[in-house]
């Protein structure tokens, strides 16, 4: 088996269809308030009050499920791709193996929740951006991009879904999301701890890792999916992120980037419509 497994080769059964993030970004459509929908709701935040709440929650849950599969695959690759001791510390690999088990459970949980919500495996397209961030040749970059940026997003998503379940009175959703949230905080912490430890005497490497993290944060905020604005479906979960080792400055930066991304998406839709011939 090769070291460093390319994202295009991720193995899936016949039910799944995958798209790269570039392909997904080429879709300029928004889910923002327009026309009739504007009248029906004043916020995009994913709450049961939204008229499309059920389908939006189902689609998000499917996104979570495939994200968990990729998180599992990414952590697994970090166990294999680097020589123990020389390229990655033994203890870091143990953490990644632990993460494999957690992510495998998260897939199991998400599959069951998807069934409960009436979603079939592979019903929606799978964006492979999470695994793409796990393909870096530097384990520290993987930890920054996956554990800190993407698992940070997972904290925001699970917090939103947990609230959704509580408001709807769904006995399974809130229960499961709370458990997954506990694991994800641990994973983000792993990222924070290892980033600090490994780059303690290597400021250049740390800078590169943090840059990579903010690039990944930006990619995931594309379209304003997650921010502190009511227009974003997913709320930036500040408190849980603090627990996971993010500083105040970092949180403000993520919030700013996310809001900028929301505005970019708005402009993209307008531009596409204006530039096409009538």
């Amino acid at each position, binding site marked *: 088996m090769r070291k460093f497994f390319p994202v295009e080769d991720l193995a899936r059964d016949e039910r799944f269809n995958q798209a790269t993030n570039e392909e997904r970004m080429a879709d300029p459509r928004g889910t923002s308030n327009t026309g009739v929908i504007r009248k029906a709701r004043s916020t995009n935040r994913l709450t049961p009050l939204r008229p499309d709440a059920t389908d939006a929650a189902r689609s998000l849950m499917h996104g979570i499920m495939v994200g968990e599969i990729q998180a599992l695959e990414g952590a*697994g690759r970090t166990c*294999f791709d680097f020589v123990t001791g020389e390229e990655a510390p033994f203890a870091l690999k143990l953490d990644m193996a632990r993460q494999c088990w957690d992510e495998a459970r998260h897939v199991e949980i998400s599959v069951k929740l998807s069934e409960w919500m009436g979603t079939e495996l592979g019903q929606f397209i799978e964006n492979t951006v999470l695994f793409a961030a796990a393909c870096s040749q530097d384990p520290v970059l993987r930890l920054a991009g996956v554990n800190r940026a993407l698992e940070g997003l997972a904290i925001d998503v699970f917090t939103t879904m947990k609230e959704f379940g509580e408001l709807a009175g769904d006995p399974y959703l809130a229960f499961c999301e709370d458990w997954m949230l506990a694991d994800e905080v641990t994973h983000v912490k792993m990222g924070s701890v290892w980033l600090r430890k490994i780059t303690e005497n290597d400021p250049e490497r740390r800078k590169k890792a943090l840059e990579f993290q903010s690039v990944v944060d930006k990619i995931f905020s594309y379209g304003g999916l997650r921010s502190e604005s009511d227009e974003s479906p997913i709320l930036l979960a500040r408190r849980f992120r603090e627990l996971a080792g993010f500083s105040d400055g970092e949180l403000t930066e993520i919030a700013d980037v996310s809001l900028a991304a929301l505005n970019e998406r708005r402009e993209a839709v307008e531009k596409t419509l204006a530039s096409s011939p009538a």
Partner: protein
Amino acid sequence: MADPFKARNPFAPWDRRELPGMFDVEETARRVGHYKWAEMKLFEVLGGWIATVPEIDVKLRLGTHCYKHAWHAELWHNRLPELREMNPERLTVAPNDAMVRFIAALTEPEAPEMTIEKLVGVYRVFIPHFISAYTFHLNNTSQITDGPTSRSIKFILQDEFDDWRDGEMLIQTLLTTPAEVKRASEHQARLEILLIEAGGIAGPGTIGSAFAE
């Protein structure tokens, strides 16, 4: 209640543990170092394969089992300094070149169509050899002086049996034609031959000798 000051045997009547053991501290450390090396190779390859298998149930089992073997490696890593090896990396090695070649052959399959080979290597060859190496160690070490190793082995064996069952059942769901059965057994034979050459996970004598001297 019985008189608390009446002299009692330190070993209760049902406690039949004995002092003698086949391994001294040094030999125990050597074996434990090989176990750690082998468990590491196993959790690494299981982790690496997750992305390569399309079968979702297999993917999830590999992820779960990956952690268990990492935990076993950690138990052995922590045991080594207790066995007077202050630099655990020194003993974290393969017993010989044949074992290195076995791991290379085990790890080789990558294509998504090769789940049978991947699972056969782990669950029909490697894990059965772990079970035998650990069982031999447990049954031959001093039940009193080497209590910590025995305790770890008991936990580990529980995992190995559980995972072997999982893996074997997955293999049985994948073998649906005579050609696939042949594929599985050919790969198994190829790996088994390398392990014979290695003498087992801890090298020659991994499970002692079955012959009358």
